[in-house]
């Protein structure tokens, strides 16, 4: 009963507060702008994905026609691009583009999808250096600043709105002298504050969630209900964290102005300063190794390999008997020799990158330990994971492409070593990349850590606020 009265009054207060209505309206405009940016980016990626798939089909079709023509007596279009050669059909001009479909909620979170490559051309020459490409064409300045998407609005601006709505939830009543009157009713301070904040939280989180769901509806995000649920849970937990923090500060019995200063300070430290300071500390304590030496190593390996091709081939055949059925190592063809060199370079490159990646993973593991200090980093991590635009999904994609490249080599290398010719008959059997996208359970398991940490922070401030509210007396 008391709760309903408080709610009704809250509604009346909101309707009477013009500046507040303007701020809320502005927030909706920002949400709308953020969503359209995400949708535009998603559509752009979808068009590119479509184009890569058409490209795959067109290449196979063209090769099929040429191979059939050659079988019927025609000459290959160029002696260097004879599709009967496995180094051509399986080489750069016959590449299969392996592509990562945009994350199901990309429209809500651009995340890393503007920086990391989401498709790779796979052929027999694919090696570790193939994974160090630039990804989408993008102005470095825009990459540096980052997009205005829903994740940005949720992580940075949502807390500010929350604080604007709640910094004086109790202090204002005290300053107006209505606190004693309110608490003289059969209602506790806990209930009053809880209902007031629940109303506001419902309003703010409701706006963000409504726009998110609208975005998901428009872009097929409902196909991944688990991700949508994770997204919503993160938004709600993060928003509640800020509301409860405001309630806690309100129980300290200071003025509204003091509350506002402290809460804005908290926002500044937790959202702006801490992430930057953590990044600085991370790169100071655990510097990321540079990739520059990789180029030198690759160069040296290939110089060396070219000079020792015969020796390398013999070793290759010893190491990979499965690849070499019917090959006589004593009289290797040119293709086999060059393949042995290619393979040696690839192995050396794998060594260099493995060393580098291990150091990188160590650094990242250390950096990620610090994220528990900042709710903003936690929320961002969970939101990106939910959207499918976080680091993990891209790493998983790269992992799958590596396996696919191996499959592609297994298909062509025996023919390269044996100097065999390919025909149109092999085309239907060519390996095709099929993305095995993350299982919902996997996403959920991964996101449990940041979400639980965020929940832990929420419990922490809730306890503080609960104890503080228990001490509030009308006579304060």
């Amino acid at each position, binding site marked *: 009963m008391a709760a309903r009265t408080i709610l009704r009054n809250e509604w009346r207060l909101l309707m009477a507060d013009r500046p507040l209505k303007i701020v809320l309206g502005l927030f909706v405009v920002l949400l709308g*702008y953020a969503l359209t940016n995400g949708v*535009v980016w998603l559509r*752009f990626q979808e*068009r*590119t994905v479509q184009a890569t798939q058409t*490209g795959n089909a067109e290449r196979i079709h063209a090769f099929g026609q040429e191979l059939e023509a050659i079988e019927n007596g025609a000459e290959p279009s160029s002696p260097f691009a004879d599709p009967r050669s496995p180094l051509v059909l399986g080489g750069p001009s016959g590449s299969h583009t392996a592509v990562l479909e945009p994350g199901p909620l990309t429209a809500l979170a651009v995340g*890393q999808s503007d*920086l*990391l490559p989401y*498709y790779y051309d796979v052929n027999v020459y694919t090696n570790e250096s193939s994974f*160090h*490409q*630039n*990804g*989408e*064409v*993008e*102005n*470095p*300045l*825009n*990459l*540096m*600043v*980052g*997009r*205005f998407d829903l994740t*940005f609005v949720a*992580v940075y*601006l949502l807390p*500010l709105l929350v604080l604007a709505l709640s910094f004086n939830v109790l202090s204002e009543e005290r300053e107006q002298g209505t606190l004693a009157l309110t608490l003289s009713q059969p209602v506790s301070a806990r209930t009053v504050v809880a209902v007031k904040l629940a109303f506001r939280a419902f309003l703010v989180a409701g706006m963000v969630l409504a726009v998110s769901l609208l975005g998901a509806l428009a872009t097929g995000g409902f196909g991944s209900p688990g991700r949508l649920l994770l997204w919503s849970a993160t938004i709600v937990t993060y928003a509640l964290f800020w509301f409860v923090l405001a309630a806690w500060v309100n129980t300290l019995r200071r003025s*509204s*102005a003091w509350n506002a200063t402290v809460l*804005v300070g908290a926002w*500044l430290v937790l959202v*702006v*300063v801490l*992430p*930057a300071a953590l*990044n*600085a500390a991370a*790169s*100071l304590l655990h*510097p*990321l190794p*540079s*990739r*520059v*030496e990789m*180029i*030198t190593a690759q*160069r040296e390996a290939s*110089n060396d390999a070219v000079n020792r091709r015969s020796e390398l081939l013999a070793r290759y055949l010893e190491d990979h008997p499965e690849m070499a059925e019917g090959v006589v190592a004593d009289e290797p063809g040119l293709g086999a020799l060059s393949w042995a060199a290619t393979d040696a370079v690839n192995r050396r490159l794998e060594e260099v990158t493995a060393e580098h990646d291990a150091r990188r993973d160590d650094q990242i593991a250390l*950096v*990620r330990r610090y*994220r528990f200090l900042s709710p*903003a980093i936690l929320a*961002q*991590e969970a939101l990106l994971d939910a959207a499918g635009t976080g*680091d993990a999904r891209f790493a998983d994609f790269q992992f799958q492409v590596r396996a696919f490249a191996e499959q592609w080599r297994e298909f062509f290398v025996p023919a390269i070593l044996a100097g065999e010719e390919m025909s149109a008959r092999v085309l239907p059997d060519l390996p095709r990349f099929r993305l095995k996208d993350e299982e919902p359970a996997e996403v959920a398991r991964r996101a449990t850590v940041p979400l639980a940490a965020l929940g832990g922070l929420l419990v922490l401030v809730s306890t503080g606020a609960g104890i503080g509210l228990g001490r509030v007396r009308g006579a304060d």
Partner: protein
Amino acid sequence: MIRHIARKEFTDVMRDGRFRWSSILVGALLLVSLAHGWDQTRKARQEHAAAQATAREHWDTQGEKNPHSAAHYGIYAFKPRLALSFVDEGVDPYTGTSVWLEAHRQNDFLLRPAQDATAAQRIGALTAAQVLQHLLPLLIILLTFAAFAGERERGTLRQLLATGVGRRELATGKALGIAGALSLLLAPAALVGAAALVVANPGPAASPLARAAVLAGVYLAYFTAFLALSLAVSAWARSARTALVVLLTVWVVNGLVAPRVAVDLSKRLHPTPSALEFARTVEQEMAASVEGISRPDRDESTRRLLAEYGVESVEDLPINAVGVYLQESEEFGNRIFDRNYGALWDAFERQGVVHETLAVAAPLLAVRTLSMGLAGTDVEQHRHFASAAETYRRDLMRRMNGDMTENSLTGDFTYTVGAEVWEAVPSLQYAAPTLGWVLGNRGLSLAVLGAWLVGAILAAAVRVRRAEVG
């Protein structure tokens, strides 16, 4: 009189615990970021210099081969770090660090450091520039918001003015007092920065000290504008709380909202092609002729040579016709690359102008542009190096094709040369753009920042004159 007010304001600030702690925090962050940036830059420079030397050694010691094989082997170029990049790393983490200069094609710069980092590391790098652009204005706001509004609330403004102090004197005094307190924080940082610049080998930046001086001037103008704006708001606002809320809103729009709005706006106004479309367009144009750029025809090239030398068959030519044709193809390719990469860089530049224009609403955008420009870490200076590397590549290819043309005959595939030819190729000597070049490109940002400075001071003057007493 102004001196008395300034001294009083200065003492107030110094006694204020909030200021002491926040300035200690900001000062520590500033010094740490300077030291860290300096260390990073030094390491990166050593690494790049070593890699560049090794790349050159690989070129010199590639052994006996045909010049065109050497052209395919090519050489790597590594982007140098300029002297001032330790203050502002700019877009450097988002541009590649090295490029392979090989025959027939212009490659992209690869290995972007940001691709090795995580999403969390993208949301804020702590550089001196970030501290100066974001945290310093915040400190100024906290020091200034109550300057008038607070005195008015306490009723001391009426008293003060009753003593016969002019409003302008009062405002100037307060501004000077706060500026004095801030200079205790900024002067040591500037000295440390200048010392680091002198101690560090200044690298290839032209006139690093002049750049640093202008950089200091830019930041000083930014801080002055913020100080004046805060005073204006403090004089205008009814209460100190209103002043704080308004100024914090300005800060959020300036530092957080406007920069990101500019990103998506610039992409919509000046879209760039997808990487796939770009690669396909280049490929298609290389395979056929486009608008006035015709693909060289091998037979026609040979016919022309035969006529020029007055001989009947290619065997009689004193030069290698293949070398001539290769160079013609190279020049055709160059025109295609210029056309496509030129259009892309121009689109980036127009997107940059959108960012610069939005500085009208957020001075940070003007300061950021100028800061990156002066530090040598903006998109334009990346383009400048990329063009230098590409010019070098073209010269290298011309030399290789020229050697083949002049010293071998058509059809002679056994022709090889050795170290004397490789060593005769000059190294890539990069001259970073001059200060004049940078400032010439940044006229818009200079104008907008100037307008903010003048506008903020005028607003402060007007608001202080009209300020209500109580």
